[in-house]
């Protein structure tokens, strides 16, 4: 658990004249699940893209120790590819031999319990399984830090539970997970620490280590942090 995997220092970002993030700082430690929680439209996805290196901040410092993979929000599987070929995509792009890419994809799929779905197309899969295939696609490059953007959107209770088991498993294997969500109760189930962001532009209202707390207490702490931001107290 020691060691910083990701650190942001006073990161700000604007799109044109619209300021999206204002001096955001956070720390995610190696092997933990760090939840960035906040209502819609406060710049959480922008923050994740900055950590992924997809966007550059206007100011501030971003320190990422190790490789990063981002699982985008929504339905990002390519519908014309089977689950297996979706998972192998990053390896194909890196020029890895097809047989080795499929072997690697099968290993990752086995770890996530989705082996039996590999020959199916996304339209044949449930929402939860599609999400796991997207996670497998990110994991196949064996990143040190996994970034999940709103992973619970559109999932039913059972799928959320199953996805959280997967996230917990990945984290206990030593991988750092940064998860962005506006769904507090779901995210609280797996959070080791969290950063609450509110307002426009998004500002940090609280950062907290919640490892010693139960899921309900974690959720309460997150909600309290968000209310502080909303009420401006």
């Amino acid at each position: 658990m020691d060691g910083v995997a990701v650190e942001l220092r006073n990161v700000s970002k604007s799109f044109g004249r619209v300021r999206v993030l204002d001096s955001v700082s956070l720390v995610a430690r190696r092997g933990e699940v760090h939840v960035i929680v906040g209502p819609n439209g406060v710049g959480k996805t922008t923050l994740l893209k900055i950590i992924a290196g997809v966007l550059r901040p206007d100011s501030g410092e971003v320190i990422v120790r190790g490789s990063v993979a981002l699982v985008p929000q929504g339905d990002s599987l390519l519908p014309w590819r089977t689950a297996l070929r979706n998972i192998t995509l990053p390896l194909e792009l890196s020029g890895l031999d097809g047989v080795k890419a499929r072997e690697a994809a099968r290993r990752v799929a086995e770890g996530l319990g989705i082996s039996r779905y590999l020959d199916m197309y996304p339209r044949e899969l449930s929402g939860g399984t599609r999400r796991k295939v997207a996670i497998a696609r990110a994991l196949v490059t064996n990143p040190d830090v996994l970034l999940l953007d709103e992973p619970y959107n559109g999932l039913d209770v059972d799928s959320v539970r199953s996805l959280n088991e997967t996230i917990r498993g990945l984290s206990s294997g030593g991988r750092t997970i940064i998860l962005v969500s506006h769904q507090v109760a779901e995210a609280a189930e797996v959070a080791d620490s969290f950063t609450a962001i509110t307002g426009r532009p998004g500002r940090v209202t609280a950062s907290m280590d919640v490892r010693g707390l139960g899921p309900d207490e974690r959720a309460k702490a997150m909600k309290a942090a968000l209310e502080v931001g909303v009420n401006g107290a």
Partner: protein
Amino acid sequence: MRASRAAGYLLAAVIVGLAWQLASWASGNLIPGPAPAITYLAGHPGPALDAVALTLIDAVGGYAVAASLAILGLAIYELGGLGEPVVESFREVLHSVTPVAWSLALLILLGFSSRAVPILVSGLSAFPPLMTSLIEGLKASRARFGDLAAALRLRGVRRMAYIDLPASVPYFISGSRSAIGVALIVSPVAEAFGTAGGIGYGLYLFFQLHEYAAFVAWSLLLVLVMIVIDAAALGPLERWSRRWME
């Protein structure tokens, strides 16, 4: 579903046939009705098939020209920057030129018996609907897979090959349905001005010779060709392509 579609075609055919017969009676049989037209076609299967073959060559050739231009246009559009307005403007200009103007200009340029004239005219006329459809596909792909492409650091040709082209397949097929329809409508126009044959040339010739039964018969032939191609190939292909993006 299949039965209701067949019933729909049948009903439409009855309505068109009745309207046609009424028009014939109203003109004092100057416009031949369906019966003389069908009799003429049945009596001249050879020339009719030759004309259909030539018009199909012109239309399919024109579609191939349009598809090549559209894929090239998509690649230029994908570059962003000046690429987008250049392709949009090119499409607008081609969209605004009447096939008659293309026909006359190309006949002067390539000669009255040139097979290339109807092919090029139908290609230039079929390009705008196909390009419009492909641009819509590209925009939809950017909206849906933009974050994924960024996460995978896919840009330019690689992004086009792995994401934008496959995501554009349903749009390409839908646009192709319109483009082939336009090519089939426009190629007889170009054929009518030249001497290279085809349904359009036949229409012009029979009109000049006051062979109105033959004229109407070949008009009917063109309609039948379009319906058969659409019902047998383009429609099913478009329905299949919708599943591609589900």
